[in-house]
């Protein structure tokens, strides 16, 4: 079923007797597969307000991300949290939407400096599982009026309500960027280099490691970037030889590849996403190679985020046992995602709170039931 307005959506949800699988662009197929009628909400689209001087953009949830990025680029601005395009990784087609991006709280390499999608999200409108329209937050940068349901909706994967409108904080795109590249570091030295960079005062906006080497990004005004690149290069020289990549186009391509987890595109195997402490990342990855036969690793967020490529059907969580952080089964066939919980199981008291919230927002269990476990 295709929906083109918030009122229509509310009426459909009020009247339904069957559960729905909510669909924006259909590019973020993550989580436990489940029954339900497809509810296509990409028709609720269009930019409602854009004030470059106030750094704010309000748009309907079905608005294509590409449309928003083009409008922002025309004013020299951007979404600072660098939302990933998961089509290559997940093998999906379609057009990523703002609503899907928010529902999945998609945040790229710049998360370490500019915050996550949820941090840039100023306000939401959504239709809950009873068919009631709810708004929360607004379109201003600072807002502590009432509870922050905005954060709750980000990353709730359509299980609490169907987003119809989102307000986002946007930021100026920088004049210049530089990427420091260290080749040939082992994982432990790579994390040491990234930790040194992120612990420096040089305002690093990305720190990743993989087959492309160890890469650290600096952005800003031209003179400032030149100054910081030089200082950071001498700081990191203690770890290994550093070269500085200043070509804007190849730098952008490099960070797109990190953002979209390009090394695992069109490679067979399951993909797991680990959110961990950087200081514990390499030991954890080493164990994943050992106990679960991991075949590849991509470190982002200075080692705070690790993408792992595993043989199909392996239950990484069961193999690793408890650790600080959590693991999400991000890409796998439907059978594996039915057998192994995609989202990390929570301790009982936290799970009880989450279940309680779901029961209040979606009492009939009709919005993406079971998707998050």
């Amino acid at each position, binding site marked *: 079923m295709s929906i083109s307005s918030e009122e229509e959506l509310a009426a459909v949800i009020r009247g339904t007797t069957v559960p729905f699988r909510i669909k924006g662009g259909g590019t973020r197929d993550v989580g436990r597969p489940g029954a339900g009628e497809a509810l296509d909400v990409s028709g609720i689209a269009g930019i409602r307000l854009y004030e470059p001087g106030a750094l704010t953009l309000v748009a309907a949830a079905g608005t294509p991300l590409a449309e928003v990025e083009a409008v922002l680029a025309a004013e020299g601005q951007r979404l600072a949290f660098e939302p990933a395009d998961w089509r290559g990784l997940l093998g999906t087609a379609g057009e990523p939407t703002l609503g899907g991006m928010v529902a999945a709280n998609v945040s790229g390499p710049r998360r370490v400096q500019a915050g996550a999608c949820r941090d840039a999200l100023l306000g939401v409108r959504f239709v809950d599982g009873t068919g009631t329209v709810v708004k929360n937050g607004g379109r201003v940068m600072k*807002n502590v009026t009432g509870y922050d349901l905005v954060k709750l909706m980000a990353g709730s994967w359509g299980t609490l309500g169907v987003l119809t409108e989102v307000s986002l904080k946007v930021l*100026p795109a920088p004049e210049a960027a530089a990427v420091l590249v260290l080749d040939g570091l082992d994982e432990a030295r790579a994390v040491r280099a990234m930790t040194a960079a992120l612990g420096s*005062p040089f305002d690093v906006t990305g720190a990743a490691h993989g087959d492309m080497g160890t890469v650290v990004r600096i952005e800003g005004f031209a003179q400032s970037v030149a100054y910081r690149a030089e200082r950071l290069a001498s700081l990191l020289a203690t770890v290994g030889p550093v070269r500085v990549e200043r070509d804007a186009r190849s730098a952008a391509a490099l960070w797109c590849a990190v953002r979209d987890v390009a090394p695992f595109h069109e490679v067979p195997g399951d993909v797991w996403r680990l959110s961990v402490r950087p200081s514990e990342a390499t030991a954890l990855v080493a164990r994943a190679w050992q106990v679960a036969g991991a075949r590849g690793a991509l470190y982002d967020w200075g080692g705070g985020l690790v993408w792992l490529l595993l043989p199909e059907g392996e239950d990484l969580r069961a193999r690793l046992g408890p650790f600080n952080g959590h693991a999400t089964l991000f890409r796998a066939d439907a059978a594996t995602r039915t057998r192994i919980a995609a989202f990390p199981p929570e301790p009982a008291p936290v799970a009880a709170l989450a279940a309680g919230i779901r029961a209040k927002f979606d009492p009939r269990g009709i919005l993406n039931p079971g998707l998050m476990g």
Partner: protein
Amino acid sequence: MDMPLPDATILSRRAEIVARLRNVLPADAVIDDPVETRAYECDGLAAYRCPPLAVVLPRSTAEVAAALQVCHALGVPVVPRGSGTSLSGGALPTADSVILGLARMNRVLEVSYDDRFIRVEAGRTNLSVTGAVEAEGFFYAPDPSSQLACAIAGNVAMNSGGAHCLKYGVTTNNLLGVTLVQMDGSVVELGGAQMDAGGLDLLGVVCGSEGQLGVVTEATLRILPKPEGARPVLIAFDANEVAGACVADIIKAGVLPVAIEFMDRPCIRACEDFAHAGYPDCEALLIVEVEGADPEIDEQLGLIRQIAARHHPIEFRESASEEEAKKIWLGRKSAFGAMGQINDYMCLDGTIPVSALPEVLRRIGEMSRAVGLDVANVFHAGDGNMHPLILFDANKPGDLEKCETLGAEILKLCVEVGGCLTGEHGVGIEKRDLMGVQYSGADMEAQMRVKDVFDPAWLLNPAKVFPLAASAARRGG
């Protein structure tokens, strides 16, 4: 401002409640002497006062849980309190409530510079979090004006901001995890040292819930490497509108200062009389601070100078030394003290879209003249967080009421132009009855359903945030 009538049954069982608390807590952790409980009768919103039934000052998460279990079992409301600096009445007691103060829980539990976080007990003051890590070149970014006194527990409850949040965000953007004790005494860990939630972002809704969902006893906070330097400039204009346009142009140009502060003429004059900072005689002034190493600061200030020049400022004052920099900040930092010396004042904190600044300032001026109370404006202009200070005389009958009416009108104006009631102080009791201006019944119902999950009996800080009529059924009438 109405508060619900205290529950007579609870008042009559006071001795039993205190005895039960003493059973589970050390002797010095329970206060019931009326002389001593009086110290907890109000917070930073001092116009409203009410001594609590008793006060508990636990030293550990286990003691917090024990105290809450007792109150839960006996149906006694609990008002959590950090340092009691709330400007919206967030820690105001009712006569039938127990104050749960976290002041004794102030230890640093863990610091990791490699993973860039610190875990502290939530009674620790904001500034002393930075104090614990600054020797290693790190700091904790959110900097509410009360940072010398205010506790992290209160910062989390109110999602506190500060002057520098234009660049670094507010509490919620710098909070990684909490230990939360629920009203029934059960303890949950939300978040951790990692950068995102594995499931629903419950941490995100706990932050800013004004102590209504649980008592935060420990917090994991993001720490950041300190920039190499910072320098402010002062820019004076002969009209508010021009200063407002200059702010928008600076932001549009891609400069992201750490702070853009705005003061209007009544505020400038009062600060000048009080602090003698040497501010120019003008209608509006901006203090813009940028960070980095010297060459980076020069580059940014050069650009800001060019932008400002297009708006023909009366003065563009740079600081060549640490001393001159301090002098630029001196007046701004003493603004509240200056106002307090002249008058009683009420400080609002509605937020507006930056583009609406000139219009809002003009209309506040008109409203102020119509009511006959002066309003001085000092605020965080970069993010639109206004701080109109309404001056009144608490000893003059009717003045407080007049001031509250004007305050409500100004906040309604903030919402009307696309903003909100409160940017960083919280709703508390102060803006509770205005919630309906910003949110529909359904919007508030969705929020109250979250409290139903965390605190089904509505015993935690119950008469705050939502209009009394809206929450009456849940609070048991």
